[in-house]
């Protein structure tokens, strides 16, 4: 038996790098993020690493496909995934504004899955920019698959069961589940994506990323449940008083005398 596992990920701008005054929103409500570096959406990064560990520990071959919907900014990440032993690295090309249309992203993923059948789909539960927290859930609904959300670990159990750890509102759950299913990855400790060695990179330097036009039918584009009508920077500034002093001890004393003592007394 071979198991087909699809991992969906998104490359996002590292928004924490934008200085407070650096947000530019144009009249079409687009945001200029071109000058900050990109990164893997942290939840998707965990999804990719969990998939690699899953494949390594499975007693049968696992075919790993990494997929992203979007533009060329994902190209180098896809190459890295080849070096990390993903069998296929696929980019569903689209230049549409998908920020607030998880329905369209899910539709493109589902169209791919219909042509490339999978047993398990792993993806991050949410990504910055849209912050929709919806794509894995809609993907599961469109495929009519069950979904386990806030996943923190995936293991194989026997021939056809998966053991999944996940978080729920008030605790941690461990369950056995039968694929096919969508695993939406949440806060998974220690799940940082490994880095390939130079040798691993060189070994797959000629492998080409598969680029396929994203199947987002015109009607699907309109299918977004919501339309963006406004975007504004949130100003969270407070007084930001900097405590002066010659050394940390002196600063601590001032902080305590002038502020903390009173605030602690209020408690």
């Amino acid at each position: 038996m071979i198991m087909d596992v699809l991992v969906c990920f998104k490359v996002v701008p590292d928004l924490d790098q934008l200085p407070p005054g650096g947000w530019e929103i144009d009249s079409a409500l687009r945001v200029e993020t071109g000058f900050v570096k990109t990164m893997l959406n942290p939840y998707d990064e965990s999804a990719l690493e969990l998939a690699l560990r899953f494949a390594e520990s499975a007693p049968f071959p696992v075919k790993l496909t990494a997929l992203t919907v979007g533009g060329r900014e994902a190209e180098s990440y896809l190459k890295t995934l080849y070096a990390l032993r993903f069998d296929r690295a696929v980019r569903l090309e689209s230049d549409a504004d998908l920020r607030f249309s998880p329905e369209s992203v899910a539709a493109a993923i589902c169209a791919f899955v219909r042509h490339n059948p999978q047993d398990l789909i792993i993806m991050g539960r949410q990504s910055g920019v849209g912050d929709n927290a919806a794509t894995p859930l809609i993907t599961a609904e469109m495929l009519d698959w069950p979904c386990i959300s806030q996943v923190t670990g995936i293991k194989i159990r026997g021939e056809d069961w998966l053991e999944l750890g996940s978080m729920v509102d008030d605790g941690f759950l461990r369950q056995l589940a039968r694929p096919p299913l969508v695993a939406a990855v949440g806060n998974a400790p220690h799940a940082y994506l490994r880095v390939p060695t130079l040798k691993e990179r060189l070994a797959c330097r000629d492998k080409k990323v598969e680029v396929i036009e994203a199947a987002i039918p015109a009607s699907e584009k309109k299918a977004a449940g919501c339309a963006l009508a406004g975007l504004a920077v949130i100003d969270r500034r407070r007084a930001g008083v900097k405590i002066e002093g010659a050394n940390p001890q002196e600063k601590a004393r001032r902080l305590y005398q002038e502020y903390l003592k009173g605030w602690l007394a209020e408690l």
Partner: protein
Amino acid sequence: MNYTVVLNGCSRTVQSQAEELAAFIETNLGAAAPGRCIIFYSAPEKKDELAALFPAEYLLLVRVERYQPEFFLSALARLAQDNPTPLYLFPGGYSGSELAVRLACRLGGSSLTAVQKLEAAQEPPVCCKTVYSGYLQARLELRRKPYCLSIARGGAGQRRRAVKVREMAELDMRGAAEASFCRELEFKEAGGGGLEQASFIMAAGRGVGSKEKTEKFKQAAAELGAAFGVSRPVAMNAWAPLSALIGASGVISRPRLCIAAGVSGAAAFYAGIEKSKHIVALNIDEFAPLVQTADVAVIDDYEAVLEELLRLIRQERELKAKGE
């Protein structure tokens, strides 16, 4: 706008879910808006208590084996078919967001998660929520009925005003558990450390440096009577348990005082402390964003500052003890 509220009574968090939803409804729809409430529950001894949590004109209690979204969804979809409302409101936890999005798919409606504000009188209705990892506020028009929304966590809570319950019904869906695609092996309650309710919290960020130093920081917090929290990298490095995570993907706290050390102040973290009355930043970098979004900041090595603070507070306590 007529609405249906859905509560996950299998979770210990159900009371705060109910209170946050009650406040959301009163602010956004008005206390008099006609509503229904559906409560899923698994412990029969809690039924009466749960039924009193969210008085609505029509109240439905659905007994299930455990929290399992697939059962909740098939029940909700069926109920929505027989007796639809244009608006479904879910609490802000994991289950609320999952159910909102998936129910909208099944009913052909629009969904949004973590909604802060709903302008229901507009046509189409508009929701406000934070986007771009918490840096921006978006206004989004809802295109299709029914609207399935989960509200933002950590909003103000209030007890719901008494409403006369006209009809109360019950449903038993426990049999459904047998056919499920999955089986529960183990459930462990998260010991939250009281971060949500704490009046004083101390939060450690990546700048604290190591697992050992995080542990030391936690002890300092305990000595000062503060609840202990951490930023995402600290939790991801497993320097502290996940239940201590503060922020958009963790706990939303509302203390009177928050001291954050070695935290840069990314918006996703700040979401978890912004309701603090006073914020103190201990950071070595004067350009860290938290320096501007705190009330006061000490620009220095947090360890030296914290050590001196501990000394001062101990001294003060001793003096007090002697005086008494």
